[in-house]
């Protein structure tokens, strides 16, 4: 039977789940939208650790620098006018109920096919602060996502910079609208310097075991603009390095077939801005 422990702060929780490593039987409970399913099915961990630490729900915006507590919900993101660039993402996570419960931190560890918010954060080059960790530069979200199975961590906050106007785009492909699980999701960040794309980042959701970047597409866009030729080149290499899964939503074949089409649509809509 699942035992529940409520502790005062996230640092206390980190001690319970042992500094960076889930100690076998204790798992951190955030919004519950993923973990409670397992608990209901009798597949939950022996111990759930949760905290009411108010720091987790803080949204701090300072100019272009944004800090989101790991417990910030999608609904909170949608309530912040200053986070308008993230609204197209948060709005497509689950339905109203899931958005009131699901957290930014939880989305980073949500298994396939979930995790669309993490896809956006990955494209935006977000950094992550670990619970109980020292101050200083956080870890790149890339590392956290890549290692999340092998060595899951407990995060306390996510930091990112506001993108230039029109430089960030997001597309979620699902069969049921407005709320439906991803066939795939795509996030593109194309910051510009002197009229040229510099530091392009492109991330895919539901196209692998975790949200993942597309080096091939980034290379195709880097140094240019979002003109027709560049978009065409990007679409050509859309699935390079990707091995999308087959699941109840779509087959690997289908995902590979349509990935380039959807990427092209997203880039075209961004190019027109």
């Amino acid at each position, binding site marked *: *039977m*699942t035992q529940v422990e409520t502790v005062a702060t996230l640092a206390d929780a980190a001690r319970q789940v042992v500094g960076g490593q889930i100690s076998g039987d204790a798992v951190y409970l955030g919004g519950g939208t993923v973990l409670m399913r397992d608990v*209901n*099915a*009798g597949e939950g961990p022996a111990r759930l650790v949760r905290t009411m630490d108010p720091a987790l729900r803080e949204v701090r915006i300072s100019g272009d620098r944004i800090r989101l507590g790991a417990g910030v919900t999608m609904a909170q993101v949608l309530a912040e006018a200053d986070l308008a660039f993230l609204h197209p993402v948060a709005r497509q996570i689950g339905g109203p109920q899931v958005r009131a419960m699901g957290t930014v931190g939880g989305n980073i560890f949500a298994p396939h096919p979930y995790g669309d918010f993490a896809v956006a954060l990955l494209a935006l080059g977000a950094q992550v602060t670990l619970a109980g960790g020292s101050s200083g530069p956080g870890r790149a979200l890339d590392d956290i996502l890549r290692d999340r199975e092998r060595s899951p961590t407990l995060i306390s906050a996510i930091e990112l910079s506001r993108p230039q106007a029109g430089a960030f785009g997001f597309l979620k492909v699902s069969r049921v609208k407005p709320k439906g699980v991803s066939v795939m999701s795509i996030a593109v960040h194309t910051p510009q310097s002197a009229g040229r794309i510099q530091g392009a980042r492109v991330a895919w959701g539901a196209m692998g075991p975790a949200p993942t970047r597309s080096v091939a597409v980034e290379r195709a866009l880097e140094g240019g603009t979002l003109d027709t030729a560049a978009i065409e080149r990007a679409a050509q290499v859309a699935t390079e390095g990707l091995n999308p899964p087959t699941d109840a939503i779509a087959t690997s074949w289908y995902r590979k077939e349509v990935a380039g089409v959807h990427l092209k649509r997203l880039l075209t809509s961004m190019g027109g801005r």
Partner: protein
Amino acid sequence: MNDMSNMPASKGILGLQNPQIEFRKDLFADERDENLNEIGKPVRRQDIEGHVTGRSPFYDDHLFEGLLHMRYVRSPHHHARIRRIDTSAAQGMPGVVRIITSDDVPANMNTLLSLLDFGLDDEPVLSDKKVAYVGEPVVAVVALTEAQARAAVKAVQVDYEVLPHVLDPEEALKPGAPTVCDVYPGNAFVYHGKYNHQKLRYGDVETALKSADHVIETRHQMSPIEQAPMETCGAIAAPEQNGRYVCYSGTQGLFFSLGTAAKVLNMPSSRLHFIGGTVGGGFGGKVDSIHEPLAILGTVLTGKPCKSQWDREEEMQVGAPRGAERWYITDGVMNDGRIVARKFTGYFDAGAYTRLTSYAVIKCVGHLPGPYTIPNVSADVYCVYTNRTPATAMRGFGVTGVDFSIEAHMDQIADTLGMNPIDLRILNAYRDGDMKAHRRTAKNCAFIECCQVVAEKAGVTIKPESKAASSMKDGGGERGQLPAFTATDENGRVEGFEGWSYAKKGGGSATTGSVPSTTTPTPASLPQTPQPIPQPASPAPVTPAPQAPTPQVQSPSPAPTASSPKRRPPTRFSSISGFRRR
């Protein structure tokens, strides 16, 4: 023409021009009394206030002190022999009150249609010999909480010997295929004790095909379809007073469930108090009485209220879907579009057990060849066993699958002939007075009018003859006559089955000293002689006397029937499934 005066003044939220319901009162206007009090009026449903206040009493909306929860150990294999069941580890687990195996079930057979003498018992309540589909229940665990029951289920050890399985109906019918259901070797339900399929024979299809200008064949296939009601299946049973048990159920067939529970528990139905009728969506998926007998048995064995309920995963995977169907239709068609012959071969995938599929086939064949007058029709329709989830009813069950195939086939004909598909249908549509392939006269036909309205709505121009056609004209006469000759055959003949008697499955399941083999399944109020058939209000043109059953040869059968009393078939059912001679 469209009377919308009584409808709410709404165009629908999408701004569509059409209201939710359109009455074509111009059609068959003199056949109806239009002074309707309820139909077409915006009258509130009598139960809707309960729905909007949350007070409608679904089966789970009843509180019981000390309610126990049942969960099941289920087969992970498509097909396997059960070597050993070891519940010892589960017995001692926290909260476990009782573990139930097949030995605990007084009459371990849950085959609904056997209550109507249609088919043999084939499905255990809890399996002990083998499992034939993923999810088949083997052991029931009763515990204080659902979580404890789930944990204990995991601790039950079942030793399986995996067997080869078959998941396709045509593969299942091939010689050498794994035997899914031991009662029916060859993986096909036996109709009338004689054939491995249901036959329809009307006229001479093979001869007619030879003289047709075109022979057009199609093949259509569907997957099983899950009803997916919002409320999952389940039942709660509790002791009442005076040796009675109350059972709250989400079943769509309260009397089915009552009869099944009485049979499985070897208990007179007077000891059972069934309460239901508030169903959170059924769509046909809540007609198999899976939960009630086990919930009541749990209560009998523990003395406490007991809930048996599927979670969502079980509802989707273990709960019976609409069975998949595969249809081969071959038509002989003349150049002018007249269909002169239609041949069906159909396969209903029953999954691992019969449930209602045997009846679905009967219903289906009564429907063929669709709303068309075709002078030569034959059908071979199989109820096939595969190692898939057992199928059951759903919306228009037995009929919607073949109807899709028929209409897609008609479009194929239209395409081949270069003919308007609606004109084609009106040309071949049945009319009042025509003889139908199951040898009853068509009346109250309305297919032509439906086609005309469809053409109007879809903006499709049809020929003047089609516009002028009517279901009430040009039928009967020669079209109303039976064919002079009907070709019959003995294909698919099966030996070793009796036509009508109720037989139990052989073997050691019914052991707990309760069911003598001569016991009839329900209290002895069943008549021993056929009752006269109640006459319908508007009698059919020909009403034959009830057919006395022909004496059956006592051939060796899978179940020991020597000591079972010979029972006359229930005459009501025989009128549907029998082969009537006219």
